């Protein structure tokens, strides 16, 4: 070979060597975590999840028999006006208790996206705007909503009396069948159309009280079921366990790829996600306005601001006579924050566990895929503000991230590792035992 070709050959070799060493060193250093890093990551591990908070409003919250009744009710389409809509219609276990639609459709289309309820037993507020303070109160709202189940409370009580009487009587005070038989066949409820409201008002106080109490008990059974739903460890959790055990780089690389680990570093650092999506469930359950695109500009969704008003008018809170708690024990309701500019357009931070499987995203499913979500956080648009409709300018809780395309992809890869496998033998995820 002559000198020039030798020179070219050496340069190429040198270049290849440089590439190999640079990128292999980079790939390796991504797996280098210090003791302090591992301690920080440990707080996101699923085994750090405490037991569900004490539910003083429902004395049967952790009762196995109540959970079984709740499970049967959850999957029973008979609890609806046309006998075709069950809780599992929109909260399908195989889809991690969501339905893959932008806005769920029961009897009609509802306003919001169906949240994954696998982790909902841990936060103090239910719904995107926090308008229910417990899972049992939450369950009652879709049952009567004309776009969801559409069944009036009087009919729900009649249904349970005819199909679940024995199970109900064993758990709660026995149903007053004689009084139930005096109820009208037509729907009677203070929350539905004017005819139903009229029929409700014509009921005696004794009938109303009995129906409300039985209706609340239906919610309590459903709550007991939801508290039994558990998640399996996700690839992220296995990775953190491996770090805690001090496994070597090869073993770590088998659990999470270099891209996924880079995505994790971005999640905790530059992506700023961990400032709100923290803890074992990747949420702090707080309400924030992140400027998600407004789905209907003619009727803006005011989030927590509306939720607080609904909460005060809700007849099934911890403070109500249908709750098993003493009003002095209801801390969150007693010290409810009712005012503040940060409530306008603020929605509850959802858990990011299983997020890759619960598209579309945001309160009305405005963002179809995770990459769109990441792009929104990367270059956020401020929330829509209409002086006529909003009481004050919505506060904006996020800042632009300046992530590169590659970094966004890595973050996406990381979010995939938060998907827990579904345990096929976990009976709480199955409609029936066979």
């Amino acid at each position, binding site marked *: 070979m002559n000198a020039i070709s030798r020179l070219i050959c050496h340069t190429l070799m040198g270049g290849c060597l440089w590439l190999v060493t640079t990128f292999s060193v980079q790939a390796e250093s991504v797996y280098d975590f210090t003791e302090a890093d591992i301690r920080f990551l440990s707080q996101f591990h699923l085994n750090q999840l405490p037991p569900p908070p004490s539910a003083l409003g429902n004395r049967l919250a952790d009762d196995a028999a109540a959970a079984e009744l709740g499970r049967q009710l959850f999957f029973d389409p008979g609890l609806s006006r046309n006998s075709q809509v069950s809780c599992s219609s929109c909260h399908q276990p195989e889809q991690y208790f969501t339905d893959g639609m932008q806005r769920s459709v029961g009897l009609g289309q509802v306003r919001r996206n169906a949240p994954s309820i696998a982790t909902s037993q841990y936060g103090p507020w239910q719904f995107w705007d926090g308008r229910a303070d417990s899972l049992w109160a939450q369950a009652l709202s879709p049952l009567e909503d004309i776009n969801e189940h559409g069944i009036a409370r009087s009919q729900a009580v009649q249904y349970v009396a005819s199909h679940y009487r024995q199970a109900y009587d064993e758990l709660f005070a026995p149903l007053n069948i004689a009084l139930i038989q005096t109820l009208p066949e037509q729907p009677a409820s203070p929350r539905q159309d004017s005819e139903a409201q009229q029929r409700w008002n014509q009921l005696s106080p004794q009938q109303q009280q009995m129906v409300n109490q039985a209706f609340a008990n239906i919610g309590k059974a459903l709550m007991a079921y939801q508290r039994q739903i558990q998640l399996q460890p996700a690839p992220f959790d296995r990775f953190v366990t491996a770090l805690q055990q001090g496994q070597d780089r090869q073993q770590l690389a088998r659990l999470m790829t270099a891209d996924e680990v880079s995505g994790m570093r971005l999640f905790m650092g*530059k992506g700023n996600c961990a*400032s*709100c999506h923290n803890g074992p469930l990747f949420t702090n359950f707080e309400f924030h306005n992140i400027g998600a695109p407004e789905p209907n500009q003619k009727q803006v969704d005011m989030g927590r601001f509306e939720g607080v008003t609904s909460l005060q008018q809700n007849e099934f809170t911890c403070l109500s006579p249908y709750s098993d708690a003493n009003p002095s024990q209801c801390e*969150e309701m007693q*010290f409810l*924050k*009712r005012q503040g500019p940060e409530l306008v357009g603020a929605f509850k931070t959802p858990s990011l566990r299983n997020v890759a499987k619960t598209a579309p995203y945001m309160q009305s499913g405005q963002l179809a895929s995770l990459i769109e979500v990441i792009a929104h956080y990367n270059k956020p648009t401020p929330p829509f503000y209409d002086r006529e409709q909003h009481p004050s300018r919505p*506060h*904006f809780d996020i800042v632009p991230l300046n992530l590169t395309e590659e970094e966004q992809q890595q973050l996406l890869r990381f979010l995939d590792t938060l998907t827990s496998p579904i345990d096929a033998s976990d009976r709480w995820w199955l409609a029936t035992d066979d």
Partner: protein
Amino acid sequence: MIKPLKFIAVISLGFSLVGFCHAEHNESIELVAHANAILLESKALELESIEVLKRSNKLLGDIKKLRVEQRKVRGSDSEASFTAMVNTLNEQRQDWQQHGRMLRQRSSALEQQAMALIKLGFTVSWSDKVHLHGPMKLASSEHPVMAHNAQIRSVHPTMLGQMTDGADTDSKSGMSMKVPALSGQNAPADLDVSTFQRSRNLTFFAHAEPLTQPTADVPLNKIHQWRLLVSDAQGRPVTGAKINIDGHMPGHVHGLPTQPKITEELSPGEYLVDGVKFQMTGWWVMQFDIEHQANSDSLVFNLVL
């Protein structure tokens, strides 16, 4: 001669023994009343210093105008005397400025003395209720993560750099990962984090502490209770007051996640504050607006979690 003296001695000893039991309480009330007097003096000094500095600044303005005149008369025969006059005025101005500064320093020294007396007075008269003497601290947890870290930033596109800078991250010692950093607070280095405070118009003095066991520290993300002890300017406990509570984080556009309330008055001047919750670490400002009979005033407690 000796007998009456002995008699007097015995009687006075007796009285002082009896008085000893009440002396502590009375002494502590007197301490607070004394502290109040010092605070009034400190306030008077501060107002005086403001006057002096105002005068000095006005004179500075005049001197600057005269310097312009001085440049105009340069080279003429009146220059020397003119310059001498302006220099004398400048020295006068410097003296006043010095005086004003000294008054201000004296005022803050008196204030510190007074607050120390207040602390002592409260500790003595409410000795079984005061368990926290230092600043309020967060219950230990190694990596408390925050609720968000967006400071107030204008979203207007013309605000330079504010919407193009990335998020603030921190690299704590011993960590290879960056974590979200708390930003936008800029707490002053000498922030007053004392739990013994005075109200704005010196109408009330108060002490606040968390009622958590075993140590009186502040838990994160948990509803807990505080004890508020309120006395008037003379050190007497204030009963039956109406108190409103408000909290926020400077630099962040949000308040407390709950609405704390006074739920009961446990003893004269001792109020139970329930429903306090902090969802993030950082510098919090808790404001208590107190109304009692004809007086109303507000107290501010700073805490850095």
